[in-house]
């Protein structure tokens, strides 16, 4: 945040916490049958905690389906949180009744991703902007319109735009109007859900600059939801990275970008295409998609895709090979092995028995499909894998699945890492950290 003007009576520099989210959860029940029996739960947000100070911009980033939008909606109680609390200026808003909630909604406003669908096409810009005032019963109509005119100027449009209609404005202009509408009730918190994702880069730059200026002018706190890390770097003071409903890392923006600790954050940062021609070439760092949140992986829920997933103590071979073996395990667990396709591949009929050569060919195909090298560096690991592959080609996939799960159990899946602080203002949830801490301690004690 840039230094504020001395005459300001606002307390942005006091570091006062405006909103504090504690172990917030939002689960959506999956119901089945006539009686609507709950058969499962989509854990969209699964216990997140963070705070936003007055005048601060906090980014919430992650891939689609990580729960960032649901988190935002639960914080404003547009969705009823399942568990946890949200303290706004010292009061728990999850306890609010309807009247209190309406009052709270004046303090916290939201801006959405798509400016085209966030306006009523039959309402003039002025009417749209003053609608929140009307709802909250502020002022006579004339006074309200005067406020709208004033705000339009502040967001860089002209007074005369009050009488125009949404279709007459470009995307960037509409997003400015959306900002004016959010500002009209004089809020203290703005939740911006992907406010620039639908805009062109040049327009994006304009809207982001405006957002920064307005924040300074009104001393606003902003919760900025985005999947675009470059945009986040531009506007946020702190960033929380979410994966499958949990925060995996939270830090100062520059710390996060310069020194990312969680493998997921690293993978996300690596995936950003840069205009640096020197670092050309794409590295498809992460394999697979985000797992289904109704059935998330146990332990650290990123282990199914993590390039740095920890090997069991008993084995020691190349990380890349280890990841590929895990990929095989995960894909068997998720959707089994297409054994018929495999038999077809080597030219076997449905009821023909598997000869030795066929088995070898099928095993080789399984390895190449999952990029597993022809031999793992560790002989005992190799024999476990070979045995499992044998079981697969002879049709007992379930047995293979069990033995792989037993033999290749990573510490990442046995327990959930907790979000621990490594430095002031930098916390992340990864078992690698605990490991390296152990190593550090061991090194320290042996050095003494």
């Amino acid at each position: 945040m840039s230094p504020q003007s001395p005459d300001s009576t606002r307390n942005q520099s006091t570091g006062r916490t405006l909103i504090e989210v504690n172990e917030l959860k939002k689960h959506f029940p999956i119901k089945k049958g006539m009686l609507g029996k709950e058969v499962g739960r989509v854990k969209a947000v699964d216990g997140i905690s963070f705070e936003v100070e007055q005048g601060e911009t906090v980014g919430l980033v992650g891939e689609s389906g990580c729960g960032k939008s649901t988190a935002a909606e639960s914080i404003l109680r547009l969705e009823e949180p399942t568990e946890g609390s949200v303290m706004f200026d010292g009061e728990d808003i999850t306890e609010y009744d309807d009247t209190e909630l309406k009052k709270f909604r004046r303090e916290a406003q939201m801006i959405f991703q798509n400016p085209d669908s966030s306006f009523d096409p039959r309402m003039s810009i002025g009417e749209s902007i003053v609608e929140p005032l009307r709802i909250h019963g502020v002022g006579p109509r004339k006074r309200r319109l005067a406020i709208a005119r004033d705000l339009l100027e502040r967001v860089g449009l002209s007074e005369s735009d009050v009488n125009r209609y949404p279709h007459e404005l470009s995307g960037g202009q509409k997003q400015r109007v959306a900002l004016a509408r959010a500002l009209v009730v004089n809020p203290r918190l703005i939740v911006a859900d992907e406010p620039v994702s639908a805009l062109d880069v040049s327009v994006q730059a304009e809207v982001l600059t405006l957002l920064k200026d307005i924040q300074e002018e009104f001393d606003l706190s902003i919760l900025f939801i985005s999947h675009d890390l470059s945009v986040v770097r531009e506007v946020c003071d702190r960033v929380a990275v979410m994966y499958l409903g949990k925060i995996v890392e939270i830090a100062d923006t520059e710390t996060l970008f310069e020194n990312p600790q969680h493998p997921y954050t690293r993978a996300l940062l690596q995936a950003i295409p840069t205009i640096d021609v020197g670092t050309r070439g794409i590295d498809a760092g992460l394999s697979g998609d985000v797992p289904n949140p109704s059935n998330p992986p146990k332990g650290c829920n990123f282990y199914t895709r993590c390039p740095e997933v920890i090997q069991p103590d008993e084995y020691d071979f190349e990380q890349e090979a280890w990841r590929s073996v895990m990929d095989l395990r995960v894909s068997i667990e998720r959707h089994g092995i297409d054994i018929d396709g495999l038999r077809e591949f080597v030219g076997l009929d449905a009821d023909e028995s598997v000869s030795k050569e066929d088995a070898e060919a099928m095993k080789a195909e399984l390895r190449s499909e999952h990029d597993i090298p022809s031999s793992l560096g560790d002989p005992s690991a190799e024999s476990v894998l070979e045995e499992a592959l044998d079981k697969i080609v002879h049709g007992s996939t379930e047995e293979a699945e069990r033995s792989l799960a037993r033999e290749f159990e990573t510490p990442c899946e046995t327990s959930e890492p907790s979000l621990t602080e490594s430095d002031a203002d930098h916390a992340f949830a990864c078992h690698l950290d605990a490991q390296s801490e152990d190593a550090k301690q061991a090194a320290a004690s042996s050095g003494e």
Partner: protein
Amino acid sequence: MTDPLLTVENLKTHFHTDDGTAYAVDGVDFEVNHGETVAIVGESGSGKTVTSESITKILDMPPGEIVEGAVRFDGKDLTSMSDKQLQDIRGNRISHIFQNPQNGLNPVYKVGRQIGESLRIHRDDLSKDEIRDRVIDLLDRTGIPEASSRVDDYPHEFSGGMKQRVLIAMALAGDPDLLIADEPTTALDVTIQAQILKLLEDIQEEYEMSIIFVTHDLGVVSEIADRVVVMYSGKVMERGSVEDVIQNPAHPYTKALIECLPGRGSSMKRIDGALPSVTDPPAGCRFNPRCEHAVDDCSKDDQPEMYAVDDDASHQASCIYYGPGHDEAELETYDNRSETQRDTRADGGHET
């Protein structure tokens, strides 16, 4: 030197609308060589998509019309071909993939059937089983696990990234010489985007195809393109190798576009003003009303011709500073707009 696979010459695609003629593409030249990736970059409304769709004439005509120019593909002019002749080229020798994978698939048919469609149309010599085998092979090559069982799934059973893979498989079915990819990764997450870009790179090598990559994202361009064409308001502003255009941009528009990218660590700038009207474009250089370096000559006549940058014929910019009578060094030194003009900007905000 072999002939380029595709040559677009002075292409003009206009739309006849109630508000007048929209000059969506207004004199575009570029070529695509065998096995190379050419990126067409521009903001929305720059005409990049219309350019790419004019190649195989998949635009709605009317209101669209190719009023001038030639599109030579493998020695033949596509603009003068009949619809029937074009059918043999579309989906067979030139394939398209589009931005939104949700809209590219028909929800009521299995994906295998949709991928096989172009084979059923173009390849009479293949039996049903052969087509199915090919489809499975295509799905497998585009990195869809368990291809032989997924072939019978419906589109809703695939995630966004997987749908884009299905669409790529569909585009590859005819073993095309040219793949036109219009913002194929814009709707995807960065991690999935990286996977799809990697896939495109791999299959380009495998199939030895050329790719036209239409995008607004300069980051993506610098990762995958060999050459770049920068478009603005229906005109080509600059073209050259990716190294030249990205690292040593010549046209003020390209420079401005790079400067407004967020998250580069340095300060983010913006381009003042708005895109010009497509029905009534400004005289001279289309970018002159927003250009910091504009002089009187910039608003005269038509868009300046493409001048070589640094005497390198492969790097050209449509800017008079690179032409005779001007010195490109002036671009570095001063800003021709007076301060008062700059202060009357639409939003009156401060510079960051």
